């Protein structure tokens, strides 16, 4: 239990620093930046205290907002995906999730990719609608969502593969 808390705290800090110091300065094609910090929300243990989880996600988003001077857009997007995560989990993993003994290391890759994709796209749609904040620029919102999502998903999958421990 203790190792889960310390693992997640370290992950929290490392992801925030990675996001604000590296990922927000990539500016691929001028504006495409990956948001890898949502890996914290994606990989949070499934068996958890939901209130605490939502509060942690809010805090994560707020810290990112503090660094990027972006008001509350990251906090809003994080809280939303944290709240809807059980639904997305059930949709992606089906039976395995309902047995309540799921570990991200052991499920098969296809389901995991679906799960990461849905989480990322939902997060990015909320993030960019709030950032641009204008219905007349919906095309720009969708364009930013599409490109950043592709970038984020690729990076998240790579990070998960690199840092996953060998399952016994």
């Amino acid at each position, binding site marked *: 239990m203790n190792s889960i808390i310390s693992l997640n705290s370290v992950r929290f800090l490392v992801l925030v620093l990675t996001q604000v*110091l590296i990922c927000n300065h990539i500016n691929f094609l*001028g504006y495409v930046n990956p948001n890898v910090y949502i890996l914290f929300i994606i990989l949070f243990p499934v068996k958890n205290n939901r209130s605490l989880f*939502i509060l942690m996600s809010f805090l994560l988003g707020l810290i990112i907002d503090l660094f*990027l001077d972006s008001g509350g857009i990251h906090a809003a997007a994080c809280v939303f995906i*944290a709240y809807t995560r059980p639904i997305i989990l059930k949709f992606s993993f089906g039976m395995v999730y309902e047995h309540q003994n799921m570990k991200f290391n052991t499920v098969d890759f296809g389901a995991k990719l679906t799960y990461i994709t849905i989480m990322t796209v939902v997060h990015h749609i909320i993030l960019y609608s709030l950032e641009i*904040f204008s219905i007349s620029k919906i095309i720009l919102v969708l364009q930013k969502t599409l490109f950043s999502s592709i970038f984020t998903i690729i990076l998240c999958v790579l990070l998960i593969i690199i840092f996953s421990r060998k399952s016994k």
Partner: protein
Amino acid sequence: MQQIINFIIRNKTFLLFLLLFFISIVFTIQSHSYHKSKFINSANFLTGGIYNSVNNISEYLSLKSQNQILSEENNRLKSLLFNSENTIDSTYTDSITFNGLYKIYTAKIIKNSYSVADNILLINKGTKDSIKEDFGVITSKGVLGIIDNSSNNYSTVISILNTTSNISAQLKNTNHFGSLTWNGDSPNIVQLTDVEKIAPVKEGDTIVTSGLSSIFPKDIHIGVVKDFKLDIAENYYEINVVLFNDMTNLEHVHIIENRDIEEITNLLNSN
């Protein structure tokens, strides 16, 4: 009463979600209105400190291009000095240095941003160096933005690449003025709107600050006209302006304080 408490306990996750989501939306709306983002900004000791220490390392990477910019600036000032008509006289005192209208501070950008719709920069001077809200920020090439929030050691700057930014600007050779805004598309093109239809706009004309807002002095360079068209009502021009500044490569900036700004605002408010 029992039922209300039961309801709250049963739906506590949902209520917590609603509360936090509402708080973030409030912060978001605040950040979209000019000069309202008081709580969530990076001018505090934690984020400012982290950005500052990282910038101390990363500034070495851009040393070459920054030296180039500074030497170009030196070059320009030298040529002004050598070509000026004033011969320097030993009894001549430069009155600008102690009671001029504008006071200039230097600062360094420690966080640059140009890829989102509302770009905000962070500089390493704050209230300790008597930097306050509404001071103008420029580089050697042109206008950069306006100070928004200040903490002890750091200040945030609303960049001209911010959809809420609004700076008064004019054509260099005539006095037709308009307001400079940004539509969020390209980091080197801004829009000058509300310029009267009778103004003689031509491609390649220089755009400078108008000095009407009392934040910037008159005639600070902004950019050149790329193209222009009339707006929907056909009364005003909408002009695309290519900036002189390379907003993606910034390091050394100057902050301008107008010493009379209090007097001017008092006068305007009293009417």
